[in-house]
């Protein structure tokens, strides 16, 4: 069939297809590209002329993030939150997905359907009671409260994505493990986890991004700089009186770069997760 296609001459239509796609690609990166370029201008240059090119790039806006807006501690907080979400979601979710896949029990299908429905819960609705619970537990202004909130919304998604992965694994190897005297948990830990590694990488990546990008829980649960990650840290730059445009742009780029690098490096996994996740 490729022979048939190759024989077709290079037509005008193909040129049009490529041109339209490149145009769409430029439009797609334009907003972020613009943000990145503007973040390297001084605040005076940002306001001077919108379409002026970058004359003297400066990292002053990035420096201001650390000097004025506590970005050093916010970065550490973001990393801690993301890792916490990964550990809880992949740990608990991996075990549960494996259980649902290999050892279905009475009611497990109902539970799985229930889990899909909990994925649809409006996060802002869950924040209301969770805030009161965290308050009662004395966990407000801690990273723990933020991690718990993000993880509980992420966990059903992880189970939903991982279960088909375990379903698709050949059973023979795991059975051999059972015959050799491993417990089901041992089989999970020593055999299934390795075989399902691509799936686990996918959900770990998506969980990390979920923790890194979440704004709702940090802005609801934490008001002190000690517990504020990058996302809600960005909100300090737009107060009712003044918007610190330079810092805001630099902060937006700073927040985006790790997820961009991760997504490009693990693009295959990201697209797979995106396809399995719905």
């Amino acid at each position, binding site marked *: 069939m490729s022979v048939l296609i190759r024989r077709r001459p290079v037509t005008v239509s193909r040129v049009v297809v490529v041109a339209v796609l490149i145009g769409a690609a430029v439009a797609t990166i334009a907003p972020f590209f613009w943000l990145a370029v503007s973040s390297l201008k001084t605040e005076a240059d940002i306001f001077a002329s919108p379409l002026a090119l970058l004359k003297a790039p400066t990292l002053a806006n990035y420096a201001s993030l650390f000097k004025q807006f506590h970005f050093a501690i916010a970065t550490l907080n973001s990393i801690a939150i993301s890792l916490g979400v990964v550990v809880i979601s992949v740990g608990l979710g991996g075990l549960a997905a494996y259980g649902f896949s290999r050892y279905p029990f009475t009611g497990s299908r109902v539970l799985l359907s229930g889990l899909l429905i909990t994925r649809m819960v*409006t996060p802002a609705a869950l924040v209301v009671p969770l805030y009161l619970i965290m308050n009662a537990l004395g966990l407000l202004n801690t990273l723990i409260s933020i991690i718990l909130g993000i993880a509980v919304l992420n966990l059903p998604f992880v189970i939903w994505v991982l279960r088909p992965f375990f379903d698709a694994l050949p059973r023979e190897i795991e059975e051999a493990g059972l015959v050799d005297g491993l417990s089901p948990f041992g089989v999970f830990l020593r055999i299934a986890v390795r075989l399902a590694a691509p799936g686990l990488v996918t959900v770990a990546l998506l969980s990390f991004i979920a923790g890194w990008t979440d704004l709702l829980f940090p802005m609801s649960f934490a008001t002190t700089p000690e517990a504020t990650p990058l996302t809600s840290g960005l909100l300090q730059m737009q107060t009712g009186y003044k918007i610190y445009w330079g810092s805001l742009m630099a902060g937006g780029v700073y927040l985006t770069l790790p997820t961009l690098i991760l997504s490009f490096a693990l693009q295959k996994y990201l697209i797979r997760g995106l396809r399995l996740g719905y």
Partner: protein
Amino acid sequence: MRQAVRNLPPPVAGEGRGGGVGSLAQVPGRVRLRSRRLTGFGLALPALIFVFAFMVYPVVSLVVLSFQEYAPLRSTATTFAGLANYVWLAGSDLVHQSIWVTVVFTAASVAVEMAIGLAIAVLLAKLVVQLRSQPGRLLTRLLGGVFILPFATPAIAGAIAWKTLLNPQFGPVDAIFHTDIAWFAQFPLASVIVADAWKMMPFVLFLMFAAILSIEPEQYEAARLDGANGWQEFRYLTFPLILPVVAVTAAFRAVDAFTKIFDTVFVTTGGGPATDTQVFPLLIWRTTFDYLNFGHASALAVVAIIVSALLGASLLAIRRASST
């Protein structure tokens, strides 16, 4: 197919030596069957406890709270309020407006995403099939990397980017068109829709792309031999074949947009001007944290959860219907 996999009997401990898996499960020992089920339950238990503690219990307490009055600004006491919060909700113009704004946002945003995502997916698939040379593959990989970018951008960063682009003082959009429009103030809902559609378009694109590539090439050959042009090929071959995926994707995106839109609106318009873009999740949040009226907020949240559960259940039904 997935159904078939799910129905395969699970392996039984210690019985792997004899025949196939099927023969094992036909005569399972009563004790083994029970222990097998306990194993599954045991593996799922930590996750279930976690979800019950931080999702189910909070939602139950939310329902209780929605029948109470608790507004720390007025009084620290929690008093039984009957249906008062729900009566307020039913009669409040603020709530009606918010629901309407959310519906319009969802419909428009999903329509834009689907149209653009599908168009790019069709073209990209054409390119992948046509260009089998090395530079051709490189080009499609590069384009794939570019199109995933908005999806990899945190919502708050995307919102900052759009706020910059559409700024009337120094935004390039107004400069290019020689206009002086404060987009987020004068066309707030349309601007928010554009920002959200940009962010979520890749999701649609890659699902559609995968669906199109899974169509048998022979079918296109047949269409070509019949003399179909590009549009006819799409209209009578590609689109009908991927329609189930289109339906599920649109339904999924609609549920997601309706229940989760928050960051983009909060950062760009803050729900304004006035309450013109106050989508439902934002209304809940403001009622909780700005007005500190937990009774009203709980009633709103209960409504949101009921709606999301109904939408989730119907999504499950659509998914089942389209996969069989």
